[in-house]
């Protein structure tokens, strides 16, 4: 094992590089991903080292980027598309939901589309409109897509490679406010997995699993991507107040590893879900519904959700009031603990 400290953005960069070295069919596509290295520099250095044929600066058209990536995937390429910001994925919505998601089914399994769509997402970085959104629920409802989101450099490094190796289309949501968080990365693990007996199948299964990020007995606190750090902080504070919080990092939104959450819920009897996406019709709704369906008679309290409000993401001066924060998570933990 060779553990190195790196940022989450750096881990994605290293993961992309490893994938490109492993498989010459891996291509990067997007706006400014080449010479500039992307507006967040996630693809930094790759254009220089792999050339413009493998790191392609595309025309400014998201539908076109995803649509041509589909065509290239039909010839065996594995395009990794960057959408510059969450709020700019919607021009590609039709290509993603009616084409990318459905081609495998439409072709009765004859066509695989191993396209990865990287989406820097969520807020908290003081950006202007359309640069802070959490659109994951708008994709999780569509069958045929996988959605994963890393919360740590290790998961970022592993996840991007698993996503690329997967024969299914994967939306890879990168919590941009966590890009500069550092962590240890063991770069041998995913390599062994991909080169191992189960290869891409194993990697696909692995990336779909939730992770218990902290054990606890009283409340199950579920988070993913941008809110995992907040959940861990909340657990810390709650512990000081005598409440033992188990933190589950979902890692995958589609499939949703509700089994891991249900297992935890059956022990704790109390569940709080925290995400940046608006609560109403958000990802937490599905998890809440499943946990209730499957663990109803173990619950001491209703599943609670802490998320964004049913309002457009506000100007950045208000974003920290709009987003879930420590106080709001603890308030929900308190509420479930009253039962």
């Amino acid at each position, binding site marked *: 094992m060779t553990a190195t400290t790196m940022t989450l953005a750096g881990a994605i960069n290293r993961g992309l590089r490893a994938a490109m070295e492993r498989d010459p069919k891996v291509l990067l596509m997007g706006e400014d991903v080449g010479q500039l290295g992307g507006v967040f520099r996630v693809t930094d250095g790759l254009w220089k080292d792999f050339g413009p*044929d493998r790191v392609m600066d595309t*025309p400014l058209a998201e*539908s076109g980027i995803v649509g041509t990536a589909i065509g290239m995937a039909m010839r065996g390429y594995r395009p990794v598309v960057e959408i510059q910001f969450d709020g700019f994925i919607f021009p590609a919505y*039709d290509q993603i939901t009616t084409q990318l998601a459905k081609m495998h089914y439409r*072709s*009765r399994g004859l066509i695989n589309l191993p396209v990865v769509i990287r989406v820097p997402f969520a807020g908290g970085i003081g950006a202007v409109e359309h640069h802070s959104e959490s659109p994951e629920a708008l994709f999780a409802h569509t069958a*045929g897509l*996988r959605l994963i989101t890393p919360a740590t450099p290790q998961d970022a490094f592993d996840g991007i490679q698993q996503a690329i190796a997967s024969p*299914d289309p994967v939306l890879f949501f990168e919590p941009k406010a966590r890009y500069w968080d550092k962590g240890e990365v063991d770069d041998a693990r995913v390599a062994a997995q991909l080169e191992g007996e189960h290869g891409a199948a194993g990697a696909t299964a692995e990336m779909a699993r939730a992770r218990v990020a902290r054990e606890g007995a009283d409340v199950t606190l579920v988070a993913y991507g941008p809110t995992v750090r907040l959940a861990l902080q909340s657990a810390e504070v709650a512990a000081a107040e005598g409440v033992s919080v188990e933190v589950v990092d979902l890692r995958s939104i589609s*499939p949703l590893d509700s089994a891991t959450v249900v297992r935890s819920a059956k022990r704790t009897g109390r569940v709080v879900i925290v995400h940046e996406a608006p609560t109403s019709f958000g990802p937490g709704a599905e998890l809440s519904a499943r946990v209730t369906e499957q663990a109803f008679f173990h619950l001491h309290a209703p599943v609670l959700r802490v998320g964004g409000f049913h309002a457009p993401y506000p100007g950045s001066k208000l974003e920290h009031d709009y987003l879930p924060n420590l106080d709001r998570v603890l308030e929900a933990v308190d509420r479930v603990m009253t039962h």
Partner: protein
Amino acid sequence: MEAHGPLSDEGLVQMLTPAGERVEDERFSSFAAHLDADDLRAMWRDMVLVRAFDTEATSLQRQGQLGLWVPCLGQEAAQIGSGHALRPSDYVFPSYREHGVAFTRGVDLPEILRLFRGLQHGAWDPAAHGFHLYTLVIGAHSLHATGYAMAMDRDGLVATGDADRDGAVICYFGDGATSQGDVNESFTFASVNRAPIVFFVQNNQFAISEPTTCQSTVPIAQRGDGFGIPSVRVDGNDVIASYAVSQWALRRARAGEGPVLVEAFTYRMGAHTTSDDPTRYRTKADEQYWAERDPIARLEAHLVSLGELSDDFADGVRAEAKELGRRTRETVRSWGKPPLAEMFQHVYAEPHATVEAERAWFERYEASFADAEARA
């Protein structure tokens, strides 16, 4: 017809007049020069068979055997002409009306009806025929075609030095589709990547009920120039001209000279689909005008005038057509309901927990009826 509008016949390449007289075209005649009587007869045969199939499918829909049918009636010359210019090394992205092209790619025509009977959404193996599945979302496939062409280029299948090995993509869509953002984005991606692709617009003068004037104020072919894509308008009811122009375009693309836009000006002689009622939006006179320009009759007249359509041959083809109709009917009627398990198959290439859980539930649920029946 407006003088300079999208329904004018300005600049149309023509090699066969509506009366079936062969005329020369300065730019494109050379691309059809090698066609001999056998070639023309083969095209005529294909058009006749495709029309027979098309007619049979319409009547199967009327009999309730199909949910819907999308006839290509009247567009046979554009499709068979361009289809004959294709080679196995090429790849086709059809829209949903290219049954004629499908035939030239070796797709067994009745198989197409799986889609329209509601058995499945895709009905043939695209790779086996170099013919992608139909795409019903207007224009969406134009980007796939462009990406596929870019990939062919990368794969060294273009401008190989051996013109017989080179390949290209051809992408079909309608006049209505040219308004879609995706189609225009394809033009940009194809142009800046110099992709080996031919965009083949069948301007059949309608998008369902809307005439082409709802989509453009100028001939559709003019669109390409604005993207740096050379364009040409061809009489789409003229199978020889459609062939020649497609040859030109495909050779260019295969040789690495980049994309081309072909507008084949034709007429949808039938309804948009079997759900459509064209009497609501066009006149009998218009239909009559175009009936006189029927692409099959035109080639037939030409062959007859050359003395190249023997009764034997013609009868043979008509018998084949009848047999195709019969086989189509029988094939369609032989199809049972797909197994329920197919609902859960091929949603993903690898297992997905949600699908697995729902499949498991469904199996238990279905079994419970079987159990109940067994107990009863």
